[in-house]
């Protein structure tokens, strides 16, 4: 029940390739997200484009967050507390359609990503959990029953 351990172990961290935007990330990424929010205004977008580094000085970002923004490292931004609905505003400011960001985050080209979606998207098979715990082969009765014990512990865990 050590609080520090609980803090780092959230049931949803087992989902691969996913950064769940929870209260902790929200706090960590507050200024990063507020920077993105500022890009809702045309004059701010203009100022940012004119001198990105200077514009970012207004926001008390961590050096890592600052670097991730300047280098457009979208997964890193999520890891550092960014939320996709906010970071998408940065992508829009750059004039990119959303699938450009999705392609960056998934390490593919925009065309490959668009093709993947047209083929019906990324399969959930093999993408359920890092531990492999919830794949149908290990829980033959179905993922639904497999999740029950996990769910039971969920509430306790995340309130830690």
């Amino acid at each position, binding site marked *: 029940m050590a609080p520090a351990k609980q803090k780092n172990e959230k049931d949803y961290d087992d989902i691969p390739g996913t950064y769940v935007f929870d209260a902790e990330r929200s706090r960590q990424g507050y200024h990063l997200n507020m920077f993105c929010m500022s890009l809702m205004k045309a004059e701010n977008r203009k100022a940012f484009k004119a001198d990105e580094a200077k514009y970012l000085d207004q926001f008390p970002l961590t050096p890592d967050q600052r670097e991730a923004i300047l280098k457009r490292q979208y997964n890193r931004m999520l890891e550092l507390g960014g939320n996709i609905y906010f970071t998408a505003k940065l992508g829009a400011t750059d004039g990119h359609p959303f699938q450009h960001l999705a392609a960056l985050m998934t390490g593919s080209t925009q065309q490959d990503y668009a093709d993947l979606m047209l083929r019906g998207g990324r399969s959930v098979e093999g993408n359920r*959990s890092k531990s492999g715990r*919830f794949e149908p082969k290990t829980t033959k009765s179905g993922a639904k029953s497999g999740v029950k014990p996990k769910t039971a512990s969920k509430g306790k865990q995340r309130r830690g």
Partner: protein
Amino acid sequence: MARIIAGVTSSHVPAIGAAIDNHRTGEPYWQRVFEGFERSKEWIAKARPDVVIGVYNDHASAFSVEIIPTFALGTAGEFPIADEGWGPRPVPVVKGHPELAAHIAQSVILDEFDLTLCNKMEVDHGLTVPLNLMFGTPKEWPCPVIPLAVNVVQYPPPTGNRCFMLGKAIRKAVESYPEDLKVVIFGTGGMSHQISGQRAGLINSKFDHAFLDDLTKNPKKLTRLSHLELMREAGAEGVEMVMWLIMRGALDDKVDEVYRFYTVPASNTAVGHIILANRIKGAKKAVGKKAPAKLKRAAARQKIQRIRS
């Protein structure tokens, strides 16, 4: 008295709004999506709701990370269209129904749902895209819309069960409103999608179809889905399907499935849409009229149209 005659769920993919705004609905890619709503437009034109309650989520438009209300009810007379970074969508301003909204607020808060009330709020594609899908692109929306914004951006959103129970409380509130009003409730968002991280692009059609089946026949089962399971099976952003359960909670236990549509993809998302109608009870004369009765017969004949890609 006012009453809820039906519920509608629909995805609210922003790219659908962009396709409408940029006149690209005739392109084959988008035709596939819009065709699925043709019958729905006919249905709602006949149902003629007096008020729509629109359950949706804000996408960092009205609410940033400064204030994160779990349930925010729009009690204003009108709701301006938010500028989401490309200028406001060219759609009519959403007019509210402040009297009914205030009544709902009072009733559900006393029923122990601690809503945030918004007398000033802009609304984004989360609300306006479903309005377009159901009403097309009129000069004015055909009826007042009461927005109910649900936090699904910051984890945790309200549980499915909480949403379902809120739906029940909303229904009770509506039914205690003295004016004869036909209300349709929209639950928006979904279906399976993930737009963040290396797992972006996730779609789980099997899960979606099962969800639609259960939404009609066995919604209680859906109220027991954990957020973890929703995120794992339907994508991190797919968790927003909890909003559909507010709609479902506001309906009868047994409903008629009037229509269903499902297609993949719209941009990064599986589009799911369903219309569920409350069965007509003998006593509710003032509201009955022809359209719902006809719908009921249609549904009874199992004329459920399913279009699947």
